[in-house]
């Protein structure tokens, strides 16, 4: 079975977006330089010309409003931020204009566009270069906020955004995922709407709702446990956090009675809070135990490696939480992975930035 990395999938999706529609424009700081947004936009300016693929000044707010004006004019803008943190400078346009343009004008306008931004930990990115801002973006109605957790998800989501979605899609790509390899087969039916949540792995005992790279941590945790214990983790990739598949989550919790939410950001008002709200409001009786939330620590992200490792949840936290939710099964060693094993993914990343 051939494999494809996340980076290759995103790169292919960008080329497809440019090839399949003449009206696609792609812009952002660094899209034409020698790094090319980790390679995902490399070569596009040469292939499609400087009117369709271009650098921007360091003007996040205005270039976001620019995307709106271009979209209103029939272009399909793809705006790329190599650091999601800089999107905070564009919140005025994202929330005050883009999220509202269709509704506020009574449906007279559509503003299809894709905004890609890169989030993530590792190599001391620190407080202002690693934030996961999905909750801020998802709070106001009007945007689709996605966190593609696999090559397949990125390809299907971007294809759908470009070809079918009439609204704005904001995507957060985790930089640690870029070199993960995935099965190349695209199991998605192109007719399916990937702006939703996905069942990644069935299991009977604990439901894990995860986002972004935490889906991979959950898979590692499930594999680890499966080799040692008779505890099955059911993993749901929440993916489109503004439009999650609530039925998928509830159906799973109905089966397992136990829920862990693991996210790349803070708990309060975020993904952890939202998933807990969905279950608590709709089917609290399905829960056999209180929900376990595994967010990042309630602090800004520290640069020191030692602190950064504590700041983020990882497979070890998921395993511990799963064990704590499934007590009373005798005869197991309850082994936790070594620190070395847990952190090998994060240690191997040294850029590029």
């Amino acid at each position, binding site marked *: 079975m051939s494999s494809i990395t996340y980076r290759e999938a995103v790169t292919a999706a960008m080329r497809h977006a440019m090839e399949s529609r003449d009206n696609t424009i792609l812009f952002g700081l660094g899209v034409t330089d020698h790094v090319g947004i980790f390679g995902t936009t490399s070569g596009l300016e040469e292939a499609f010309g400087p009117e*369709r693929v271009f650098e*921007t000044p360091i*003007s996040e707010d205005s270039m976001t*409003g620019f995307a*709106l*004006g271009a979209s209103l004019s029939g*272009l399909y803008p793809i705006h790329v931020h190599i650091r999601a943190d800089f999107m905070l400078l564009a919140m005025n*346009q994202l929330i005050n204009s883009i999220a509202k343009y269709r509704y*506020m004008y009574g449906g007279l306008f559509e503003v299809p566009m894709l905004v890609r931004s890169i989030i993530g930990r590792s190599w001391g990115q620190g407080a202002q270069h690693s934030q996961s801002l999905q909750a801020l973006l998802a709070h106001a109605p009007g945007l689709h906020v996605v966190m593609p957790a696999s090559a397949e998800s990125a390809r299907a989501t971007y294809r759908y955004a470009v070809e079918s979605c009439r609204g704005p899609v904001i995507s957060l790509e985790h930089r640690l995922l870029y070199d993960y390899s995935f099965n190349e087969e695209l199991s998605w039916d192109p007719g399916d709407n990937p702006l939703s949540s996905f069942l990644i792995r069935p299991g009977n005992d604990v439901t894990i709702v995860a986002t972004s790279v935490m889906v991979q941590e959950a898979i590692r945790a499930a594999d680890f446990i499966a080799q040692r214990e008779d505890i099955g983790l059911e993993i749901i990739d929440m993916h489109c956090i503004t439009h999650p598949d609530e039925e998928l989550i509830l159906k799973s919790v109905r089966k397992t009675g136990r829920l862990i939410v693991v996210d790349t950001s803070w708990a309060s008002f975020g993904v952890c809070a939202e998933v807990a709200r969905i279950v608590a409001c709709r089917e609290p009786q399905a829960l056999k135990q209180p929900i376990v939330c595994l967010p990042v620590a309630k602090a800004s992200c520290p640069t020191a490696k030692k602190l950064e490792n504590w700041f983020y949840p990882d497979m070890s936290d998921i395993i511990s939480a799963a064990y704590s939710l499934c007590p009373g099964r005798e005869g197991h060693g309850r082994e936790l992975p070594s620190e070395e094993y847990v952190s090998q993914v994060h240690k191997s990343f040294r850029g590029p930035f």
Partner: protein
Amino acid sequence: MTRYAGLTEDLRGKLLARALRIRMVEERIIELYPSDVIQSPVHLSIGQELHTVALASLLTPPGDRIFTTYRSHAAYLASGGDLKLMFAELYGKQTGVSKGKAGSMHLCHPSTGLMGSSAIVGAVYSHAVGAAYADKIAKNGRVVLCITGEGATEEGTFHECLNFTALKGLPLVYIIENNGLAINIPLAKRQSYRLRDLVKAYGISHFHARDSFDMDEVMTLAAEAFAAARDRHAPAVLEIDTYRYKEHVGICCDHDKKYRDPEELEDWRRRDPLINDQGLLSLHQSAIAEEIDAAVLFADRSPYPSLGDLTEDVY
């Protein structure tokens, strides 16, 4: 005094009638407002109508497009916006141009080129930049207008947009209506820069019409700016000195407040053709009043939105 060759007596009469229509619509809003049929803030354009109709007369909608701000009644009507749909919108009715969801501050009329009105000061600059970029790469000879007050130029996005507009050479003309006030604050307390110097630092042409009632001056400068934008993708800023008769928001005068000089208002009113041109008034007033009556009746008799409308058009 400069004369604009294209401004024939016939056209002048038509433009004055269009400006009078805007004036009378807003005066009707003032009459209706205390009855609470319009339950939202209104930012009146009274005093600023003439240059708006003059500018719009140089555009070919819907290909030529306008982006503007919450003080949007004049731009809406000047660009050809439907009067019935406007009153229904102000009344919060389902038949409004945006089903009542936009109201006075967010009028739009895409079929005649008005692409939106933002209540966030300065937010529309970049929308206009994006639209002008699309026109540029389509090489369609169109021009985009972005109409704001001089206060919006204090936002950082104005700098960002001037930079990008000049960098790419876009068919965009920024219309800066300089009424000297941002809400209640005079320009001298807000701006350290001269707009002309700021704009020129980006290599963008700055035109200055010093009297918004002088349609010859406004159209002479606008025609030059629009032609350069269309033909050479040379952007421009056209600053127009104008006067806001009313308070920032609401239907009252604020010349009894310390910050405004009643003499100033009288100077403008003495020169105002929409007050003093008796021939104009007698020729058009009754027909315009009838049209407004019909629009108000339409709004009055239109249904309110339904509960289902509340969450419609959310992505």
